């Protein structure tokens, strides 16, 4: 019974974090919230008795994916910056 309650509460937290990730204005907040969804999902897998899946979800879903998204965001900002500089050198045309 306690396990069922914990799974339900985790589900509510996951839905809230997911909606928050969609609605957030800042990309950084979205990325961190979607990582949080995975972290709670790994807790749910653990409660349902699947430690293998929980381990994978925690390591890949909330750890590695978040980092890959953060790196990708940093790189796309860098590319934007380089494009703006190239435009400025070409004569200020946007």
């Amino acid at each position: 019974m306690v396990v069922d309650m914990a799974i339900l509460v985790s589900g509510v937290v996951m839905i809230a974090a997911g909606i928050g990730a969609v609605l957030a204005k800042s990309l950084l907040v979205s990325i961190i919230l979607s990582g949080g969804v995975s972290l709670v999902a790994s807790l749910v897998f653990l409660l349902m008795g699947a430690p293998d899946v929980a381990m994978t979800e925690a390591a890949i879903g909330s750890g590695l994916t978040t980092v890959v998204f953060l790196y990708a965001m940093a790189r796309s900002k860098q590319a934007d910056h380089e494009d703006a500089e190239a435009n400025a050198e070409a004569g200020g045309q946007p």
Partner: protein
Amino acid sequence: MMRKILVLLAVIGFGVAMLPLVLEAGVAEAPGELATAYLEQSPRDFAAANVVTAIVVSYRGFDTLGEVAVLFAATAGVGALLTKKRTETAGAEPERKPGTEILGTATGLLTGLLVMFGVYIFMHGHLTPGGGFQGGVVIATAVLLNLLASPRSRVAHGVMTAVESLSGAAYVALGLLGVVLAAGFLDPRALPLGTLGALASAGAIPLIYSAIGLKVGAELSGILEALKGDRE
């Protein structure tokens, strides 16, 4: 307005399609026929204490080989796409902020422990939860910490390539050994099974999972380094 109605209809459609899944979700009281067969046969067939590993590496071994191949293709793609541009602008070294002292100290303390834990996870894949993929990701986490703490450091590329290709070849070679000495491709009974619960048991499963762990760790480290940006 039209668009909103269409989106709403699509969402409702998905909801209706998923409803049977939601209603039938839950923990099953007793394992099904196939699961019962696996639970009863895997300790006898392969002497693997962890049934999940017995399924992943032996009964469904070919799927796992496919997963490893997919991961390899993804790594190759990321490397090919993200390495090219940097060679053009290799002259301009971008300014990078070094990691904070807290991160640096914690990295120094944790790197060894994380690598050891990753190796533990994939070597004990046939005994405890976890296996090659999980252990490999833990090792990649150690590499990630080092990349974050000192952004100028590089992954030893030749070593990673060697580890990756050798462990991939070892995986296929162990599979082929099963053709010669046991029932078929990827049959772990090519090596002696040993006693249930010992570290050196379950035939070739610990060796196969070690190869997968090293391969996954090297590949994910490669992806992280390619994404970091200044690879040459």
